[in-house]
């Protein structure tokens, strides 16, 4: 059953050095506040998994929390490169970073398979593409009916999934709305999960019987962190801070500007620093 904790407690209890961690959210609902808490708690040797590493993993990598990253698209969307990821991968700063690279389709299928309790997924992918040459975990099976060769990917293996959502009720049931990405799959794939939410409410009141809801018994810890997705966004609450995404390019380009920004905005702050981004749409 879901426990209601402070963010520091939730991360302390659920994220250990060396864990395989997925912090998901496809552009939307990225759990930045939780990422900052991991940085403050100085986790090391994490194996980070995420389709689109985005700024959140650029920050974790630049602060030395990661030793491996599994991903399918590692850029700053619409802006350019993730400088800290590149610096770590190309120059080993602040430490060496190993990569495991897939396509989006492969990653999405790998999450789906894990949520479904399967050891692998089958998909029609990578035809004529070079990634299978450099990623030995990409294999193939033959369809027993048609003889077609199809690609396979192992299910993601997660110690912990961390996501951000609109709200939770007092039983820890969680509502996600809008671009829901692979978050349900990530939570169902993980041994443990931490969910930060904009607000905790008495009644969840999902707008549709088919709304995306995670039952409280699938979640390990729930934490209210208003604004906790910033500079990503929360549908129905506040918008994506596209200006910040653009500004990040300059902040992260050099090691010293990055370090100074992290010191001022992460190390010397707490989750309450996100509150001023919080806003509920009318």
């Amino acid at each position, binding site marked *: 059953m879901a426990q209601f904790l402070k963010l520091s407690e939730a991360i302390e209890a659920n994220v250990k050095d060396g864990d395989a961690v997925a912090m998901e959210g496809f552009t939307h609902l990225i759990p930045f506040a939780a990422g900052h808490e991991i940085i403050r708690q100085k986790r090391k040797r994490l194996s980070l998994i995420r389709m689109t590493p985005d700024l959140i993993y650029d920050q974790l990598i630049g602060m030395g929390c990661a030793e491996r990253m599994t991903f399918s698209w590692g*850029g700053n969307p619409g802006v350019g490169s993730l400088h800290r990821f590149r610096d770590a991968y190309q120059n080993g700063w602040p430490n060496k970073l190993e990569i495991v690279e897939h396509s989006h389709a492969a990653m*999405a*299928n790998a999450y*789906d398979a894990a949520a479904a309790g399967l050891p692998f997924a089958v998909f029609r992918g990578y*035809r004529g593409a070079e990634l299978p040459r450099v990623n030995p975990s990409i294999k193939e099976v033959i369809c027993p009916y048609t003889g077609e060769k199809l690609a396979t990917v192992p299910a993601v293996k997660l110690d912990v999934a961390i996501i951000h959502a609109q709200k939770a009720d007092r039983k820890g049931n969680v509502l996600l709305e809008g671009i829901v990405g692979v978050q349900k799959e990530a939570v169902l794939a993980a041994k443990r999960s931490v969910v930060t939410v904009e607000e905790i409410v008495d009644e969840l009141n999902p707008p549709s019987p088919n709304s995306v809801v995670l039952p409280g018994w699938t979640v390990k810890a729930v934490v209210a962190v208003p604004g906790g997705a910033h500079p990503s966004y929360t549908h129905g609450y506040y918008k994506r801070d596209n200006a910040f995404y653009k500004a990040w390019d300059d902040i992260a380009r050099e090691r010293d500007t990055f370090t100074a920004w992290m010191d001022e905005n992460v190390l010397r702050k707490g989750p309450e620093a996100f509150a001023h981004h919080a806003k509920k749409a009318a």
Partner: protein
Amino acid sequence: MRQPFTPNEMMTVAAARALTNDDVCFVGIGAPSAACNLARQTHAPDIVLIYESGTLETRPNVLPLSIGDGELCETALTTVSVPEMFRYWLQGGRITTGFLGGAQIDRFANLNTTVVGPYEKPSVRLPGGGGAPEIATSCGQIFITMAHSKRAFVEKIDFFTSLGHGEGGDSRKKLGVTTKGPTKVMTDLCVMEPDEKTKELTVVSLHPGITKEQVSAATGWQIKFATNVIETPAPNETELKVLRELHARTKAAHGGNA
């Protein structure tokens, strides 16, 4: 009198014109997004735009900076999960036209968005393939938009992120791929199409004021020209107006140094 326009505007307009009202498009960020929404706001009002974030049939009023901006979901018919997007909608064969671009392209329209240099020790580590490897083979056809330069249009790409026409000819068929692959490459200088037999990219139209020599000089291999190379019709007033308004709204919406 013709309004002046930028090479990038010409590229976007050329891409928009290639789209029809019946298309179901898998849209990427940047020029493809501009082209698809320009088409939707001009000659193809019913075109279906799909972004890989799960937003189905979306009608953004400003261009998204990311593939998952709130604007896309708020104006979509419906939004599905990312596994569903890649499984039911892309792999399910429901997309007529997919857009791709890249850091490098070869004469058979194979693309590299992964690395410059060797994979294990790249000189530049690029973002990677994202949706491209499966977009390239699952969509009915592929349109490519890229700025034309010798650094991008190369004899040999450093990494095969996504399949174009492979080694040319019936390469796709040999790989068991039944979709058409790249049918048009729109650059800021010209429009190319694969030769029917060899599948080598061939210039079919030059943008106004652009010469064959300029295209050859910006291409890393000996680029071929069709027998009858035409001039790409310049963007008309409506196209430019709609495109510029779209960009102006976008800049205002995203703030900062857009």
